[in-house]
Structure formats: C-alpha cells, structure tokens
C-alpha cells in the first residue's frame, strides 16, 4: 500500500496519491484501487484516508452554514440572494417579516432591496433544490454598516484558527466585530475605518499564507507593528 507524496506536498488533478487499501477523502477519487487528486491542493494522509486540502475551490452550501450574501433580485414573495456559490439562494418574505406575507400590502423593497447585504443561515439545500436561507437567529439579517472582504472559501478555517484562536486574536487586537461567512465573505465592523483596515489587512495576509505554520503569532506581530506605525490606536 504505497503512497506517492510527502504529507502537505503540493498536488494537481490527476496526481496519483496512493495505491491499495485507502479511502478517497476530500478532493480525491478512486479508480482501479488507486487514489488520485481531483483538485490543486496539499495532500494529507490520515490513517488510511487520503485528503487534499484544496487551494482552489468554490463554496458549496451546507445546511447550518452562516453565509453573507447580496440581494440580486426582489421576487413577488421573497428575495434571490447571491451567496458566492454555483447556486443562488432564496430568502422567503415570511421568513423575514415573521408573519405571513400579504402581497397587496407589503412592499418587499422596503425591507430588503437589490444590493443589500444579509447575514443568513442555510436552512435547506440538496441536489435538486436551490438553497433556502433563514434569518431567525440573533445576529442574522440585513447588514447596515461595516466592510466586506472576500477570500477563497477553503481558507475560512484558517481565519478561524485552532479553537477560534486566530479570529479572537484579531477581534481583540483591532476591536472590530467580525462575522465569517462560510462562503468566503467576511463582514468587519469597527469603531473607525482605520480599525477595519487593520483587520482587513490581517485577513488578506492569512489568505496569502494560509498554508504556513506559526501564522497566528506572525499575524499578531504584524497587527501590533501596524498599530505602532499609526501611532497607536485607541483599542
């Protein structure tokens, strides 16, 4: 049962990763008892399972995910939301209004209009139906202020860090409120635009160096250095 790469080595689609009694994990496939990569990424061998951590991938909705999307269409009983996925998501009017929707009376554009940003959860999704969104939890709904950053969705876990260490560090150092959409869209709301810029810079740096070690420390140093440069922020 040989394997053909070192752990965390860069592989491309079609690379033979392992042969024999292995299980094909994420971004791999099995053919004739051989496991190949199906995406560009870093290979991981865990016990008898072979995974590729993709460097290039797009967001595929999963029920329960928090996502940030843009309203692209106002329909007659709800909104169509672009959630940076191959499928557009639907947000029903009754879901937002918290009561049944009266087409004669309610003007949906008053609630959410084209171009508005929303934080929502994926309520349902399968192969045959587009994802449905829900906003019935605190913190979900229309976004009124803050800045948006878009990163490769596969790198969201890195922004969170081990047990949330990375994200809580950034929140603490910049004083910003940060919402991570699993779809690769991040909302940053700070006391001042400078604070927000600082957090955005840190997130971009994480995206660039997502596959390096000791990242949390380096990002911390980076933020502190930038703060000093700007003569200290009031956080």
């Amino acid at each position, binding site marked *: 049962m040989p394997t053909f790469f070192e752990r*965390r*080595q*860069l592989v*491309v*689609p*079609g*690379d*033979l990763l392992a042969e024999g009694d292995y299980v094909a994990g994420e*971004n791999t*496939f099995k*053919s004739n008892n051989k496991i*190949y990569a*199906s*995406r*560009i990424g870093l290979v991981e061998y865990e016990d008898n399972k072979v995974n590729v951590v*993709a*460097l*290039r*991938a*797009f967001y*595929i909705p999963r029920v329960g995910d928090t996502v940030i999307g843009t309203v692209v269409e106002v329909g007659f009983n709800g909104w169509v939301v672009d959630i940076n996925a*191959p*499928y*557009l998501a639907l947000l029903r009017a009754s879901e937002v209004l918290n009561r049944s929707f009266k087409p004669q009376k309610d003007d949906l554009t008053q609630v959410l209009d084209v171009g508005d940003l929303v934080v929502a959860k994926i309520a349902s999704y399968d*192969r*045959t139906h587009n994802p449905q969104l829900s906003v019935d939890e605190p913190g979900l709904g229309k976004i009124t202020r803050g800045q948006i950053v878009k990163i490769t969705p596969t790198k969201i876990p890195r922004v969170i860090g081990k047990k949330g260490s990375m994200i809580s560090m950034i929140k603490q150092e910049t004083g910003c409120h940060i919402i991570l959409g699993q779809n690769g869209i991040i909302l940053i709301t700070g006391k001042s635009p400078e604070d927000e810029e600082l957090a955005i810079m840190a997130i971009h740096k994480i995206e660039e*160096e*997502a*596959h*390096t*070690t000791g990242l949390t420390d380096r990002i911390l140093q980076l933020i502190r250095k930038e703060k000093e440069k700007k003569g200290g922020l009031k956080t």
Partner: protein
Amino acid sequence: MSQKTEKLIDKKGLRIDGRKPDELRPIKIEVGVLSNADGSAYIEQGKNKILAAVYGPKELHPKHLALPDRMVLRCRYHMAPFSVQERKSPAPSRREIELSKVIREAIEPAVFVEYYPRTAVDIFIEVLQADGSTRCTSITAASLALADAGIPMRDLVAACSAGKVEDMIVLDLNDVEDKVGTADVPVAYMPNLGVITLLQMDGILTSEEFEKAVNLAIEGCMKIYAMQREALKAKYVSVKEVEE
C-alpha cells in the same frame, strides 16, 4: 491540402523550423493570468498564442437548458481577427463552431460533471495568434484553466498533433506543415486512464502511418502533460516555499 514545391524536410531530416521529426515546438505556459475569470491559462506553442478562461460553476440561463443530474459544460473556441495573415471576420465560422464542439468533448471526460447538477461552466478560448494545431494548444490551456478554477477533474487533458510531411511522420505541426503537409492528426489524451479524448484526421494515411502518428502524438501529449503540471504547480510554488 495543396501541392507546393517548398521543401519541408531538408537533407539532414530536419524540418522547416529546424526541428527533428519527433520534437515539440518551444512551449511556455502560465496559469492564473486573468483576474476576472474563475480560472485561466495562457500558452505559447511555437507562434501560437492562446488564452483560455473558465467561468463557473454558476446557474445556467436560460434555465430550461440546465440538466437535473449534471453540470453543462460550454465551450467557445474563437480566433481573433488579427490572429492570421488575412484578417478573419470576428463572426464565428463553421470551423470554429465544429472546433468548439470537439474541444468541449475532449475536455468533458476529465470533468466530474455529475458533482454539480443544474449548473454551467463556460470555457472561453481566444486564439490571439495562430500557428497550426491551435485546437490542441487550446485544449492544453483550457484544461489548466479548469483546474485553476477549482473544478474537480479526473486528470489534466494534454493535446498534441502529429502528421505526415513529405513521407515522414512528424510531431506538433506548425502552420506551414499543417497547410502543405499530407495529413494532420490532432490527439488529446488523459494519461492516467490512458484514453484518447480528441481524435481527428484529415489528409491521406495508410493505417500503419495512422497508427504511428497517433502513437507519436500521444508521446507528445505526455511531454506536454509534464509541462502542464509544472505550470500549475508554479503558481503555488511560493506557498510551498514558505511552508518548507
């Protein structure tokens, strides 16, 4: 194909551009060259200069064209008006429509189309300068653009032509060889599974010559495949270095 008297193979057995019969033209590949596209690649093979871009997967419009159990792959092969000696009308020709179809069918076996039902992926190929065997060079670039877009694939597809020029079976025809030679055999190949995904031929060949040409083209595909993988990895080499 016409019968010019120009010598295409010299006394030493070298071709009009100095290549040996089984030699590829110089190839330069770059991945991720367009910021708007989800995936892209640029390739030069001889004087061929070709850009490929991939958009998607995304919702398919009009919706009735969407398939309930798989992704729809669409491909447009297009030549820029200035890509050839005499200006080409930008309207798609019958040749371009046929090539768009065979290129799509050459790439489709590599893509896990069943993963994303009801979606579409668009492949746009622009031939900026044409120098023979453009369909093969286009396939090589398009398959890299797909990988760059993060579309799950069974393998990269490499493509290369072979043909007959003055009684000799040669690899990777250039423009003159393509136009004046006796036969042209473009081949696309998926090395992992050992299968041919594009095969065309025009000209006249005996079945022995045809077999020889197909096998030579596959050898060319294997060399190009190695370059494809290198080009794809080169884009992420910085990531790798930091890590080590």
